[in-house]
């Protein structure tokens, strides 16, 4: 297992930064919940906290294992691998969506003349370079990003105090009941979910202590900042906030300090880019690590650049317009987020708990009857959460296990493994370069490349129509 020395506090602020990054999504919240967005944000934060607790319970049951190992421990080898691949795709598509959203935002509000692919290229390259240095350095700067974003949020509330009208929060319970449920579900999914990425990263921590408290504290801090931002924007714009594509940016534009400092939105954009950079870079690293686990390959950093290159190619063709991206965010993204951040972790948790419960019962029964004790002890060692990080597929065996082998044979095996790893990385790099290069060339030639999101939209639409959702 490779530890990069991330401390508990760094984990705390990393989680906080990870959740704080999507203030743009507030537009979806306001569009759904209008002036009652503050209420929905509180409900969403509560639902998100429940999901976070569930993910942490899953982590505690499978201490030392990463997502791939957890899936296999819960569902068996084949189904577990299949689920890991699905999670890999989910993380990747979420990354594409994030990159498209940030690039679209920057292109619309900050760099209107710069072509979006150029913004995407710079963003993805910067994130990939950071991800290549592993999660340690990234988590090291999380505290400072959190401090800046939290400081800005509090300061902006103070600076906008004369424009804040608490009456804008009223009336209460004026919407249809169905809209509350829908808004809360979408808000919980889009603003307060995403902790499953950390199931890939938890083992980066140096110690073996329980991460539950720092992770949930980090989540709580992020939720507090997001809820404060919702309260601020709702109080400034009232029902008008439902019409805005970026309420937080617009509230930053309302700040005017003594008729001198009136371009505060630049600071907001800068902080937003910092937070998004952190989220994307960490996600790129997580996707690379999961890819290494899926392919049974050691050396996560070797997959970082292929993932980055592929991410750029996929992001470029994901959405043709900001409107298309908004539609995806509003209507379909929450569907997948609920599946992968809510339902599947719940299934994994129940499965792991059930397996553990059954084995405990078997052990107790065996103990009572006094038979099969040797096998029972062996089972106990293999229980989820009791083993020592054996769940990561493809991880090389511990050196201690090689002691019985002759040194030359061990060296030859290592060389063969390294050769295999290089070959796999070369294949990944070539494939990603070919795919992204092909996409870029096609776009330059004016050819229309189908969006990878099209099948996802079709699936979500089919499910919606099957269940008669609006």
């Amino acid at each position, binding site marked *: 297992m490779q530890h990069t020395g991330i401390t508990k506090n760094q984990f705390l602020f990393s989680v906080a930064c990870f959740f704080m990054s999507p203030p743009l999504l507030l537009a979806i919240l306001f569009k759904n919940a209008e002036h009652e967005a503050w209420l929905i944000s509180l409900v969403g934060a509560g639902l998100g906290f429940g999901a976070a607790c569930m993910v942490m319970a899953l982590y505690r049951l499978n201490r030392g294992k990463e997502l791939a190992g957890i899936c296999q421990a819960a569902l068996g080898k084949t189904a577990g691998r299949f689920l890991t691949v699905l999670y890999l795709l989910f993380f990747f598509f979420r990354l594409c969506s994030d990159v498209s959203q940030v690039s679209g935002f920057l292109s619309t*509000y900050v760099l209107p003349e710069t072509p979006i692919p150029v913004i995407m290229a710079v963003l993805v390259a910067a994130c990939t370079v950071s991800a290549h240095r592993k999660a340690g350095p990234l988590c090291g700067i999380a505290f400072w990003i959190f401090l800046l974003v939290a400081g800005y949020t509090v300061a902006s509330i103070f600076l906008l105090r004369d424009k804040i009208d608490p009456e804008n929060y009223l*009336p209460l319970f004026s919407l249809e009941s169905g809209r509350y449920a829908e808004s809360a579900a979408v808000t919980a999914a889009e603003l307060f979910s995403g902790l499953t990425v950390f199931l890939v990263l938890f083992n980066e921590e140096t110690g073996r202590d329980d991460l539950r408290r720092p992770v949930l504290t980090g989540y709580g801090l992020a939720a507090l900042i997001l809820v404060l931002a919702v309260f601020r924007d709702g109080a400034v714009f009232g029902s008008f906030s439902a019409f805005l594509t970026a309420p937080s940016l617009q509230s930053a534009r309302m700040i005017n300090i003594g008729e001198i400092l009136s371009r505060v939105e630049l600071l907001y954009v800068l902080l937003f880019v910092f937070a998004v950079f952190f989220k994307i870079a960490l996600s790129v690293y997580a996707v690379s690590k999961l890819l290494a686990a899926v392919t049974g390959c050691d050396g996560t950093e070797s997959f970082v650049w292929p993932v980055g290159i592929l991410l750029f190619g996929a992001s470029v063709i994901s959405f043709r317009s900001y409107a298309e991206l908004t539609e995806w965010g509003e209507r379909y993204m929450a569907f997948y987020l609920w599946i992968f951040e809510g339902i599947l972790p719940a299934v994994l948790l129940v499965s792991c708990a059930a397996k553990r419960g059954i084995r405990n019962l078997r052990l107790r029964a065996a103990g009572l009857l006094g038979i099969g004790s040797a096998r029972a002890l062996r089972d106990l060692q293999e229980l989820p959460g009791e083993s020592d990080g054996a769940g990561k597929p493809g991880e090389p065996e511990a050196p201690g296990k090689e002691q019985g082998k002759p040194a030359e044979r061990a060296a030859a095996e290592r060389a063969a493994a390294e050769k295999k790893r290089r070959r796999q990385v070369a294949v990944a790099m070539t494939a990603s370069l070919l795919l992204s290069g092909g996409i870029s060339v096609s776009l330059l030639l004016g050819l229309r490349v189908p969006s990878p999101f099209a099948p996802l939209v079709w699936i979500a639409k089919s499910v919606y129509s099957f269940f008669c959702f609006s």
Partner: protein
Amino acid sequence: MRRAKRIVCAVLAAVLWMPLGGCWDKRELSELAVVMGIALDAADGENGENGEAVAVCAQIANPVSGGSGKESGGAAVQTYTNFSGSGSSVFEVLRGMTHKSSRRLYNSHNQVILFGRALAETQRMGEVLDFFLRDNEIRYNILIAVVDGKAAETLTVTPEYENIPAREIGELIRNQKANSESVPCTLLEFVQCGLSAGRAALVPLIRLAERGDGESSGGESGGTQSKRLEVAGCAVFDGGIMKGTLNKEETRGALWVLGSADAGIVSVETDGVRTELEVLNTERHLSVRADKNGAVTAELRLVITANVGEVNRPGTAIDRGFVEKISEACSRKIQEEIRAAYRKSAALQCDVFGFGEFLYRHRLKEWRVLEADWPLRFGELTLSLHVQTHIEEMGELTAEIPLGASGRNGEARP
């Protein structure tokens, strides 16, 4: 492997320097036409020529003059340039100005949007303002005003203090807080009123007045010298269309109810003594309720804190009795102003006080019943006013100085 890494790094460095330079989005000041104000009028003729709906005049600051209005040699330089055009939409006209201006119009520093009365009374502002709300260069705290006449004319009036008329108009509107007889209205506030439940928006009304004898222009930068700008109350907008106007007293009456009248002079007369009271602070408590029959009662409690600013009869004793009298007179005067504003707004069927919005926010069930015919219900509501005035200070004087024909104790002055 290391060699390959170096090659990749070199290629990336070579590719990435271009966007990192930020050349795409550079905007040199010398390439921008900085818009300081925009005037919107109804196009001339019936629906304009060729189906044109709106006439736009954009005032551009001239940075060459450096804001001084004079060149080094002393010759006057126009500190602004006005571009006009008409078309079917604001965006079309503004972009069409590139045919006349060698620089692209830059709206981020726009101070004010002015509507001509004819446009405000005939066209929904939602349609006209869509461009300003959608464009990311424009800020929502930009001021708006209605011009009693052609809005474009105000952008040619010689400014008194500033170098650019649009800037002068902006300052003039902001300055209305001092007397509460008009109210600054930003784009955001206007839209919020439009989206609210039944509340009409108050927008400053500007007039072009002839300069009186002895009035001269302090400006040096050209423009119409014979006219000056003045604020004359407010225009009332409901449903995005201008429905009428409130004069200065009526406007202040509405602002008392809205809790926005935090400053101003109230003139009261008691026993033949006219006293000017300067309002320092207003505390407002509003309650609106409807009974089962749909009869609406609005109850307003106002606590005004004021100073004595001027007493215009020499020898008046400013004692406790006098203070009580002027306090009561001030309360009565404020009630009269509120009732006058109510009568006018009821006649216009526009709820400028936000009573409907209060019901919507605090008594949603009652509002749902009244919502459909609120303009009529608003005209029939019972207005219950309780105004208290506290006089805090008498100014720098303890008593009136007898600077009349006779001195202290009726003695003739030397």
